[in-house]
């Protein structure tokens, strides 16, 4: 083609003039030098564990900070001692005592003490900090009240440090899974001296998060941070377990999906944050040997606004849900071995299994639609599916739109694309008909999914609530054993799946490319890798 020739000629000339040469295997060379190159989807919003909220941000946080309990390298259900060496609870799981190790150090050499955690929990709960994830600490007695400003004395919150190396947490509810919860970024400690050197406890915009100022207690410390470029962390010499840390440096890149894939194919990355569906199943499988498809503890679904007709009618919601062929969507559209969702909460092996109440049943869907007064989709009111901008969401929405047209005769569905800011604010204000959503577990327990649909939960946003549902969740919380608790949760989820304020589509898989130089990168349900155990073998 003429165009090809022209471009070739121009670039050839320039390349020859400058002798720009880009040969050799960059990623392999980096591995040789102990540098791990990770795609991370986007820039971190902050390097302050109390201010971040996204999955990508938590990946950086995990390198920089270590909580009381750390992530196990092979199994997310297991607990790995972090700053706490061991912990125990009282009989009804409402009071937890963590014994901190004495050799834990901040990256400036200061010891990590129970007081640091006390300070950190107060900071994230301070109304003035406006931490997006403060609600994670509502599990502490008085945490919610303190964060909402109705309790002003922090000593009323259920956390105390009887001595330098003991931390006692008193919970608002019994929670046998509490050690799982404290792995989350919102429970990570920050260094008081550093925070206060650059401002007040509740100042968001201080320069403490910048290279040179940043102090952390994890296996790595911050070296550089350049927006739209990279975050670089290197080994923290004061880390208590420093001799176990194998890699010397991690670089997180904020590349867009396709840029990231090209960077990986050009040997510039060891790992991609994600992988577009069309690259997964190439006929000959580009880098098929480096492809990883693993279960991920998350759910992809649509919210219905049950305060708007026709979604105020449960029959309509059920008809729409039954007319979706989830199997076809995962095999032909998303194409990454996702599991079609027959419930809302993803099942976990040996743990909670949701009731099996959803299927593809166009006949029953049509019948329900007749009962609802829209035989054959006649006069079905027009409504919009809103999605945030992404080819993947768009393709799924288009497939759903066509399934409703084909199976129910509904032709009035619009798909409306919103950029993230607008999308999110429409969902929060409940200013939508049906909205795309996804939920990745914050910790490994079904309550992270089912709590969403409680009345008044800040993530509910559907207008739906059911007294029996809320009652069952409350009853579940006080059950002595997991088996009894799960039984209650199953009952609650059955209500959710009969009422269907949400339309579950599939359970996530993690899909990524990983180079063979990276060792010990095991499949994890929450995808929270503990970088301390990662090795590089060029």
């Amino acid at each position, binding site marked *: 083609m003429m165009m090809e020739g022209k471009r070739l000629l121009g670039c050839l000339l320039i390349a020859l003039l400058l002798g720009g040469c880009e040969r050799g295997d*960059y990623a392999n060379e980096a591995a040789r030098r102990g540098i791990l190159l990770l795609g991370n989807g986007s820039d971190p919003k902050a390097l302050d564990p109390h201010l971040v909220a996204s999955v990508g941000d938590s990946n950086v946080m995990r390198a920089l900070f270590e909580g009381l309990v750390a992530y196990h390298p092979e199994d997310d259900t297991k607990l790995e001692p972090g700053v706490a060496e061991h912990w125990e609870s009282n009989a009804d799981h409402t009071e937890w005592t963590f014994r901190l190790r004495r050799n834990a150090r901040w990256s400036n050499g200061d010891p990590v003490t129970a007081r640091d955690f006390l300070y950190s929990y107060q900071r994230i709960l301070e109304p003035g900090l406006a931490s*997006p994830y403060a609600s994670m600490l509502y599990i502490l007695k008085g945490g919610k009240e303190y*964060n909402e400003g109705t309790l002003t004395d922090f000593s009323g919150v259920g956390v105390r440090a009887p001595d330098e190396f003991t931390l006692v947490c008193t919970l608002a509810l019994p929670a046998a899974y509490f050690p799982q919860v404290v792995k989350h970024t919102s429970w990570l400690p920050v260094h008081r001296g550093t925070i206060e050197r650059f401002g007040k406890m509740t100042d968001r915009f201080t320069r403490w998060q910048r290279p040179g100022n940043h102090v952390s207690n994890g296996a790595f410390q911050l070296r550089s941070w350049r927006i739209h470029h990279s975050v670089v962390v290197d080994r923290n010499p004061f880390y208590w377990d420093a001799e176990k840390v194998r890699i010397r440096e991690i670089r997180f890149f904020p590349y867009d999906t*396709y840029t990231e894939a090209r960077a990986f194919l050009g040997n510039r990355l060891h790992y991609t944050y994600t992988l577009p569906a069309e690259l997964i199943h190439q006929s000959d499988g580009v880098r098929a040997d480096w492809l990883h498809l693993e279960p991920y503890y998350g759910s992809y679904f649509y919210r219905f606004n049950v305060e708007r007709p026709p979604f105020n009618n449960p029959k309509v919601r059920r008809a729409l849900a039954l007319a979706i062929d989830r199997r076809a969507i995962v095999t032909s559209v998303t194409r990454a071995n996702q599991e079609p969702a027959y419930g809302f909460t993803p099942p976990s092996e040996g743990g909670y299994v949701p009731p099996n109440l959803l299927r593809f049943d166009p006949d029953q869907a049509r019948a329900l639609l007749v009962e609802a007064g829209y035989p054959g989709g006649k006069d079905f009111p027009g409504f919009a599916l809103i999605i945030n901008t992404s080819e993947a969401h768009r393709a799924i929405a288009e497939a759903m739109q066509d399934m409703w047209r084909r199976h129910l005769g509904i032709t009035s569905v619009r798909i409306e694309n919103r950029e993230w800011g607008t999308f999110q604010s429409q969902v929060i204000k409940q200013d939508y008909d049906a909205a795309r959503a996804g939920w990745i577990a914050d910790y490994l327990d079904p309550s992270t999914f089912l709590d969403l649909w409680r009345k008044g939960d800040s993530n509910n946003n559907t207008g739906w609530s059911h007294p029996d549902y809320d009652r069952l969740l409350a009853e579940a919380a006080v059950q002595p054993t997991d088996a009894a608790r799960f039984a209650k949760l199953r009952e609650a989820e059955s209500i959710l799946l009969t009422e269907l304020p949400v339309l579950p589509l599939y359970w996530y898989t993690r899909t990524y490319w990983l180079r063979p130089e990276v060792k010990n990168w095991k499949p994890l349900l929450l995808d929270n890798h503990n970088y301390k155990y990662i090795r590089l073998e060029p």
Partner: protein
Amino acid sequence: MPLVRFVLDRLLQSLVVLVGILTLTFILLQLAPGNPFATEKNIPEHIVANMREYYGLNRPPLEQWFRMLGNYFLRFDGGESFTKDGFTVNEIILESLPVSLLVGGAGLLFALGTGVPLGVMAAARRNRGGDYVASSLALIGICLPTFVVAPLAIAFFALDLGWFAPAGWEDRRVDWILPSTVLGLFYMGYIARITRAGMLEALSQDYVRTALAKGLSERRILMVHTLRHGLLPLVSFLGPAVAGILAGSFVVETIFGLPGMGLHTVVAARDRDMPLLMGSVMTYGAMVLVSNFLSDLAQYWMNPRMRGAEADWS
């Protein structure tokens, strides 16, 4: 002195335009729905209220506008980004602008280096084979969207040949070559077409006909007599275009993973990061004004007839 008056006039006008840009952007952002503090997880309402208070968003709009005006024109301070905690707008722009300037500058040179010769060639062979070939070549960058050309170029030059990195910016001298060529390809088309039109116009002037009649060789006329006149429209086109190319392209920066200004502008608009967006818009505006001014000066210098005229030909 007309020149001094012209310069002073321009400065005053530029100041007015900058205030206008600030005001218009401010109004647009006040109107736009969306929440700068939206994140993956929902934030309780009272916490959003706290954030709005922290950033002064709960003040009356007029007060916010006035404060912003003062910050920009007295202190040259863009404030703090809403979405990039701990970064000031000034910092972000100072870090990203050089990347866009380098990529854009190289792209502009490439576009001029290829576009002007193509345009002159097309004009010299008007409506003949040479014209068609040159014009068609020039149109490649216009007829194919950049987001097609860029991945193709990466697939070939970076992945197949391995000459360049497929993405990223490591401040090495080769990282800018591929993106700036792709960027320049688009401007090349416009430059060639404007050059062609300008040259045709210049060639039809009486003095050229006279020169031709006197028997000067065609080539010398083209080069010596008409180029200066024929490039005038190009110089006036370059006024706004230079700022556009130097301020960075969202598409190119996304695809090549470059930490430049174009990316910041679009991302800030998308995330409703008002201070950062305002900073990018004001930087862009200032660049447009400067390059327009330079383009006017160049035209003033290139076209003797304009020197007597009023500076009123915006």
